[in-house]
């Protein structure tokens, strides 16, 4: 079964450093998302992306965050200058054509620890 792949599974970084979280969505999917989950808490929306541009972003997704689809397969989340409160599990998700807002397939996540 096709799946969303995220790398790395764990990322440890120093406060103020830049990190790039990588995702390979399911190949025929057109809608892409980043969510984050602080340990044991709710899954929070960060940003959605379609047709090479951001569709929507949350208040969390400030100027320190950016997303990119540099080629036909990868979808990346960059945090320019990490803060302690950015420590969380980051999930990438995608959905297929005609299913915007439904049937999101999630990756297994990248656990980001900012020290």
């Amino acid at each position: 079964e096709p799946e969303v792949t995220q790398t790395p599974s764990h990322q440890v970084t120093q406060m103020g450093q830049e990190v790039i979280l990588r995702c390979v969505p399911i190949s025929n999917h057109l809608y892409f998302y980043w969510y984050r989950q602080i340990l044991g808490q709710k899954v929070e929306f960060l940003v959605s992306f379609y047709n090479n541009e951001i569709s929507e972003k949350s208040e969390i997704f400030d100027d320190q965050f950016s997303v990119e689809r540099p080629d036909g397969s990868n979808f990346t989340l960059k945090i320019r200058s990490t803060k302690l409160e950015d420590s969380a599990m980051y999930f990438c998700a995608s959905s297929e054509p005609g299913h915007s807002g439904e049937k999101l397939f999630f990756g297994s996540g990248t656990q980001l620890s900012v020290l």
Partner: protein
Amino acid sequence: QQQVKQSPQSLIVQKGGISIINCAYENTAFDYFPWYQQFPGKGPALLIAIRPDVSEKKEGRFTISFNKSAKQFSLHIMDSQPGDSATYFCAASFTGYSSASKIIFGSGTRLSIRP
């Protein structure tokens, strides 16, 4: 207005019993209501979903009951099994848009099934 409120926060059910998780929403423009299941260290996975034009949807042991007038919906797990022990999230979204429409998650319910 875009919140989805979920209860209880945690639930313990005997094997073979019925697990019931409840959610409420405010925005009547939501038109898709999924439930996601999450195991530790994994991303959420779509379990079952309903649209507001039906009052109930059943898939195997999992049933969604939907009350449009009360703006509430619930997940019922019949004959609960230890393998059902996971965190369950209700969610809501707007669909049918050409851009990438987000899914908004409830706060989650940690379900434990006692053998």
